[in-house]
């Protein structure tokens, strides 16, 4: 299984110099109470703005009011602790093609990202959302939050127990995640995104609405991204829906598959770009190290 690669010492040593590409400081917008929750230790004055009705009077600059007789609200920059959630799609489609070990690839990437995130002592957890069966209930599995790298091996048990199954219920999984009402942080969503655009758009929008910083990692196997199937006449079955169709595989079909995968990737990338999300394409498990060490830093997933 490919996830084991993320726990090999030599690989981890190469990750030591990397940090997760997240916005660590954030403006407390307009000093609204609803955002007061993000205030905490290390608050530094950022700016002043004119008081408007509804602003928290605790942030009123009384000294300025005494000198200038003007009601001014102080704004601050907060150095926050970021909670990183790496959400892995564990639907049945992630288990195919078996030769590609797509789920293992995704879990390996998740573990590697978790290790990198722990460099800043951020709280990190990995989640997976398989279904019990085709059309069954969603199961959102999340690990415990870990901050220090000493506890990194605890992720190994979690990722090794994840099994693919059921249909992809990405929006439902995000909804379930948001119900936990965790502070806004960073959510890294790893999936093959072999679902309808409406489905993943709904999920991603939900995360954005909860003010999470979202990074999208799109994984596909070598075979399915290249369409390199044994030639012949086949009855093709969808792993999640069970739907069947007859196709004749060959060079032409492979080209069609490649074209379709590219189109799927470009549509997702465009959506992410338009919503300020980082999109990283990870096609082919055989390039695991290159993707982690070169592509992710290049695309801003890591720095």
């Amino acid at each position, binding site marked *: 299984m490919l996830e084991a690669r993320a726990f090999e010492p030599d690989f981890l040593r190469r990750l030591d110099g990397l940090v997760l590409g997240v916005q660590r400081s954030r403006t407390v917008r307009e000093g609204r109470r609803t955002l007061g929750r993000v205030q905490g230790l290390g608050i530094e004055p950022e700016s002043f703005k004119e008081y408007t009705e509804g602003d928290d009077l605790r942030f009123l600059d009384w000294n300025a009011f005494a000198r200038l007789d003007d009601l001014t609200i102080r704004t601050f920059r907060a150095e926050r602790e970021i909670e990183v959630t790496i959400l892995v799609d564990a639907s*049945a*489609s*992630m*288990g*195919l*093609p078996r*030769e590609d070990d*797509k789920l293992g690839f995704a879990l390996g990437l998740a573990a590697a990202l978790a290790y990198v995130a722990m460099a800043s002592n951020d709280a990190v957890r990995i989640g997976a959302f398989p279904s019990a069966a085709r059309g069954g209930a969603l199961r959102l599995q999340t690990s415990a939050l870990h901050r220090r790298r000493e506890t990194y091996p605890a992720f190994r048990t979690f990722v090794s127990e994840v099994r693919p199954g059921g249909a992809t219920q990405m929006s439902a999984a995000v909804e379930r995640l948001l119900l936990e009402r965790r502070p806004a942080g960073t959510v890294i969503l790893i999936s*093959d995104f*072999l679902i309808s655009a409406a489905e993943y758009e709904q999920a991603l929008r939900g995360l954005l609405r909860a003010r999470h910083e979202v990074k999208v990692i799109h994984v596909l*196997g070598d075979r*399915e991204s290249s*369409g*390199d*199937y*044994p030639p*012949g*006449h*086949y*009855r*093709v*079955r*969808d*792993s*999640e*829906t069970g*739907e*069947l*169709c*007859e*196709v*004749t*595989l060959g060079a*032409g*079909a492979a080209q*069609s*598959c490649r*074209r*379709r*995968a590219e189109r*799927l990737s470009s549509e997702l990338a465009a959506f992410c770009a338009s919503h300020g999300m980082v999109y990283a394409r990870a096609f082919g498990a055989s390039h695991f190290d290159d993707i982690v060490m070169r592509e992710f830093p290049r695309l801003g997933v890591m720095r």
Partner: protein
Amino acid sequence: MGLLNPRNLLYLASLAVLVAIYLRARAKPTLEVSSLMLFDEVAAPVASSRVLRTDLMFWLEMAALGAVSMALAGLYLRTTAKTPAHHQARALIFDLGAGMSARDRRWTRLDEAKRQALEMVAEAKPGDSFSVIGYTLEATVYRAQTAHIADVRQAIEALKPAALPARAAAMRAALMRAEGAAEIDLFADRPPAGDLLKSAGAGARLHLHQIGSPADNLAIVALEPGTVGASPGRVVVRNFSDRPQVCELVLELDGKDLSNNTFVLEPRGQTVLPFGPLEKAGLVEARIVTEDALAADNHRWTFAPNEKPDKALVMSPSPEARDDLARVLLAVNQGLIVTAVDPVKFDLKSSPRYRIALLEDAYDPGVKADARLIIYPPPWLERSAPPPWQLPVVGTVTTAEMQERADGEQLDQPLALSPARILSLPEWMDVLAHGTGAGSSGSFPLAGFGYDSRGAMGVIAFSVNDHVLLDPDKLEGLVLTVEMVKRLLAPQDLQVVSTGGSVSVPAAGVAKITSPDGSVTLARADEMGRVRLRPLQAGRYQVSSAGTKAVIYANYYDAGESDLTAAAPARVSSKPAASAETSPANIPARTRVKPIAAWLVALALLAMLVESALLTRKAMRWRVGNV
């Protein structure tokens, strides 16, 4: 072509399984993919797939499965390769019994058989091989299978008839020795029994050449000299013809005419002619002068012993046995002065030299006698070295059964004799009678005769107590004892025996043996100073060596063999059957069954290997583990 076990063709039903596998798996394989989204733009198939894909792998599997099924069913090829004429192996088997010496006009039956055989050999193709086998009392291979025609001709020409009956067992043995031959040609004057051919396994390969036609024959059945100066002798003559026969019989004593009688014998009749009593001892010869087909049974000899008053000793602890044995001695020679004594009372020092000594159930104390007959010898004392003239006793049986007479003929019913010793006879003794007994494995000698350095010596293993010799139900025991006494009293240099028996003659160095037909052979005397020979011809044998000379007269008579009126030939071969059989068209085709299971299995393996190679190539090309 055929099948050893057609039921194993049921394995071919697995072909249906193969078709089912193809229908399910090969005809339209299902490929599970992560999502059909990626195949949205793949064009729909232009043609529907065939239900059964009869591709190369299908035919390879069909071939493998079919070959294995055929191998399990035992497919074989039946080839009918004809034996090439130039490789034909034939066995020529000749009846060499006395009947084959019967004359039809100028030639004997054996001459006719040899002529026919030589014609067959002359017509043989190059490469044909022959074996030459003869039989009388036993089968003898005169020439093993060979393609050297000259050797075969030589072996055939050297065949001689013997004055012996041809035994059925010997014919069976001859047929078995010809087992390796493709064809067997049997030359005999009478057809063999059907079950004999079947038991010998000759079957259809045998071609019988029955030689000769029914012929008239007279035979001297028996010749008794009587007692010199006392009782008359007699001669028995038998007519084997179906019509009356005139018979002129000449009797001679030591070469001088005794009588000359001419009489008519009724068809298949027998007459007894008395003569004498003889005035003196000597060799009596009876001869049928009338010409008939078979000469071997026209002469007979017997020896009339001297009636001079010789001394005889009978030693036995039993008074009854002493009395019976004394009676036997006097019956053979009335001139004997018999001394009957208990061994305990016998005084060796004062005893004279005896002509014959009969020792019954007593140790031989070293009696001085020209001839000794040991009857029921006691075992020698354990841990003491016996004198060389004592016979080693191996054991004792409570009851012994005598199966055959002294002349070798089987008894109608076994003669029960009790008790008897099991003896280990020395090599220089000839066994005259065999017996079997409870508690012993196999047969053991009941009577033996021979010459050692002290003279003639005979042995009888059974006890003669309880008046066994006078019991009318055990007459063969008395006959055996009388024969033994006669032999012992007969001079060593003159013996009258039956043909086929073994004879020992005192000799020194190299002995010259002159047969009745005048042929001479040389034989070296053994360490006991004797020469052993086996007379196969009826007549006078002379054995001469340095300083010694012995004469043996061999008598022949066999009721079956002397009867020359055998059934008409089933197929009289005026022309050898082989001349027609050697043509290639008539050569029997030999059916050969050649199993091809190994080839079929090899074919199946080859098909599987090719299919495996194709699958491996496919798997490597598409990098899949399941193809």
